[in-house]
């Protein structure tokens, strides 16, 4: 079965640079979520989209932005990167009700040096 695809798997950036993370949800899933997981921490919700519109916003810095495109893939744009942005970034998708849980991608490991 198709899964949630995230790219790239690993990314190394320098401070103050910009990074773009991509997510391709499971076909027919209408909702995409982005989570950030720091070392030894639980995943923290950043932002979600339903039918290409932002549906909820969590602890996402102003330096970050995201969108969902007409083909339902989503991109997380991160500017002015800081060392503290180093983390694992998960994308997940689900149907609107969420009752079946999310399906997570394999994550993008971002390292800021």
């Amino acid at each position, binding site marked *: 079965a198709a899964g949630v695809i995230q790219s790239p798997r690993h990314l190394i950036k320098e401070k103050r640079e910009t990074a773009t993370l991509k997510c391709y949800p499971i076909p027919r899933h209408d*909702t995409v979520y982005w989570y950030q997981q720091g070392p030894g921490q639980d995943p923290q919700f950043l932002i979600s989209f339903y039918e290409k519109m932002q549906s909820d916003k969590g602890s996402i810095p102003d330096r970050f932005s995201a969108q969902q495109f007409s083909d339902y893939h989503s991109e997380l744009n991160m500017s002015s990167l800081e060392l503290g942005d180093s983390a694992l970034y998960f994308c997940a998708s689900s149907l609107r009700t969420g009752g079946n849980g999310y399906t*997570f991608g394999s994550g993008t490991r971002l390292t800021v040096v």
Partner: protein
Amino acid sequence: AQTVTQSQPEMSVQEAETVTLSCTYDTSENNYYLFWYKQPPSRQMILVIRQEAYKQQNATENRFSVNFQKAAKSFSLKISDSQLGDTAMYFCACISNFGNEKLTFGTGTRLTIIP
């Protein structure tokens, strides 16, 4: 909004034994879902088991089962006949069936299966 609490940061058990991971939650919603996710060293988040709050019967998936106590807002995970591959971080999570509510995670329990 909901909160999820896991009070056991780390646990270890001998292979083939049974282990129970604890989770309590709080939500103001009547309809909600509870989940256990497993995160092995590969860091992939894998859904282990789900429970619908309106169902009294405890969910079971092979060696994994839950003890869902709605009144006490408790949702523990039991792993029977534990295997080395069960070594992972386990997160309890909750979502309300009210639109696109975000999945709220507990802080996780690191489970180590000892050969």
